[in-house]
């Protein structure tokens, strides 16, 4: 029993990591109806920026917001330079461009920072606390807490502010929005900036648990995809719930389903993605999408 509780707690802790990156994916989807394949790599790169700032003597609490700022600007710039020219191109073009961005950023990080894994500092203690006989570290809990904060922030932004409303309107109804005087194109850039900053939060929170190296997010992004798809790709709440479920499923399947074992954990993510898309494409919290013709 105690072991089962531990599996659940550990699964939720992993799930929070997936959820944090899935939130950034959701944000981009809300801003332009796109899945950004480079989201994980951008988060990794932002984490390296934070790392560089910190080892050059900057206080963690200064480096953190500073990195978010840099990530935001970088997101906007990337949108302007790379996405803008293909903004109205078909989905396939956008997918290929973000894939190109993913490899580019990954390769650049390898070149600039090397492939030797590094230890990323965390302000949270590595001490563990006892929950019903299971253990979780404060770092794990901090990821869950930060996920919650980011979730609320995104919710407030999208639902309760004019910018958020405009953002969503520009994404889903670009033409009417334009007629109403919304600068649709800049709204997309804003969306990229915000998603990039949320990704940076994710990277900085999970880097102490993972290891900071260029491939840090390579498998995490697959789980994040699964989380976002499961939750319904436009729902921030769905991303968090989806992330926790994916983490839980992977841990429990790894521990108790002999066929999966430790070998096919990533295949569980694949199964979730395909299964959800085929059976319930809108996920748990997504609204039914009207098929655009």
């Amino acid at each position: 029993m105690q072991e089962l509780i531990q599996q659940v707690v550990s699964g939720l802790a992993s799930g929070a990591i997936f959820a944090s990156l899935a939130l950034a994916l959701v944000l981009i989807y809300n801003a332009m109806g796109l899945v950004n394949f480079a989201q994980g790599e951008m988060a990794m790169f932002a984490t390296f920026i934070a790392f560089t700032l910190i080892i050059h003597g900057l206080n963690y609490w200064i480096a953190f917001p500073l990195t978010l700022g840099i990530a935001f600007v970088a997101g906007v710039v990337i949108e302007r330079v790379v996405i803008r020219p293909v903004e109205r191109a078909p989905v396939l073009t956008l997918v290929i461009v973000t894939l190109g961005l993913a490899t580019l950023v990954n390769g650049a990080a390898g070149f600039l920072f090397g492939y030797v894994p590094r230890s990323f500092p965390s302000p949270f203690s590595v001490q563990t606390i006892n929950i019903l006989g299971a253990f979780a570290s404060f770092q794990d809990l901090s990821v869950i807490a930060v996920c919650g904060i980011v979730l609320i922030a995104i919710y407030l932004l999208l639902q309760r502010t004019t910018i958020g409303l405009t953002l969503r309107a520009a994404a889903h109804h670009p033409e009417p929005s334009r007629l109403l005087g919304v600068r649709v194109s800049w709204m997309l850039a804003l969306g990229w900036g915000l998603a990039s900053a949320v990704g940076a939060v994710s990277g900085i929170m999970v880097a102490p648990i993972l290891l900071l190296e260029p491939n840090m997010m390579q498998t995490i992004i697959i789980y994040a995809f699964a989380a976002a798809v499961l939750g319904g790709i436009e729902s921030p709440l769905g991303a968090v719930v989806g992330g926790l479920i994916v983490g839980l499923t992977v841990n429990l399947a790894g521990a108790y389903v002999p066929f999966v074992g430790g070998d096919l954990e990533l295949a569980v993510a694949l199964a979730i993605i395909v299964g959800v898309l085929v059976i319930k494409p809108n996920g748990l919290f997504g609204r039914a999408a009207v098929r655009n013709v």
Partner: protein
Amino acid sequence: MYRQVQQRLRSAPPRYWLVLVLVLFFIGLPTVITSFQASEWTLVLIFAIVIMGLNILVGYSGQISLGHGALMALGAYTSAILIHRYQVDYLVTIPIAGLVTGLIGFLLGIPALRLSALYLALATFALAVVTPSLIKRPAGLTGGVQGILISSPDPPQFAKDAFASVTSGPPMSSDQWMYYLSLISALVLFWLAWNLIRRRPGRALRAIRDREVAAASYGINIAGYKTMAFGISAFYAGIGGSLYGLAIGFVSPDTFPLALSFQLLVGTVVGGLASIAGPLIGGVFTFWLPIVSSQFVGSQSWIPAQIASVFQKAGPAVTYGALLIVVMIFAPNGVAGLIRTGYMRLQARLRGAGDRGTGQMPPDPQTV
């Protein structure tokens, strides 16, 4: 009769001659290059085959697959297992690998129907990432991480002799035989693709790609054609994968990493979507960039040493990424598209201003 042939030859459009020259070039190539260089070109041809298949799927039917490396793995393992475990002749295994992979691809095409392009990209991307660990699982069948060694096929005696007498050198090597096997496969498959695309299925696919609802209203069986495109594309990947395994002589989980799927996509896009010439250019590119480019850059004296060293250290990933983005922004129809546009402009200029209005065809609309 003779006259007729002469007439036909005279009226053949220039691109027919281009194709003929190209075919002759490829047939003659191994006689002037080393056996090792022939093995390099073998990979170019194999990639061209797979990219042709990917092109049918992406360029013509408008669906997307980021997981073609997984289908290549399926083809390669089908051949390897048949050869290794059941002592089937390697030549027989090539079409079997194509058919098995084609069938699986067709089946994959059914759930793919339900997915939008974006979700299909997601699902196939995840498939590409998971492939190596999926291969490891049935270790009894696939050899697990130890992989399966395939001894390099020996050329038949007649080919050995013929090659020796043409080059007045040593008999044909195994690498050169693989080259010709790949060349024959490529010629057949390109010819098939060309026929498919010019005829009804090709037109139907393009109609679906560009105007799905309109196509449906004309009574085109959309689901049928889309899954068929998946099946055909997988068939090409299966043949390519089978040849890939034979050419490398070893299949293992790490032979089919995510990077392979990615290379194929880059080749498809850079070569040019919805074109027959594109895959060949893409094949050269897919092979050249990861394996030769950094050596090439290092060996060129005109490139400043510092730039060369940055290029080498940054590795192929940076170049790949940058190229994908640049090509999608500036030349969405790839190198083949650039050449076609350039050729048409040139032709229009040669014809003079008079019929410029009628003679100039607009380039294909952006196909992706």
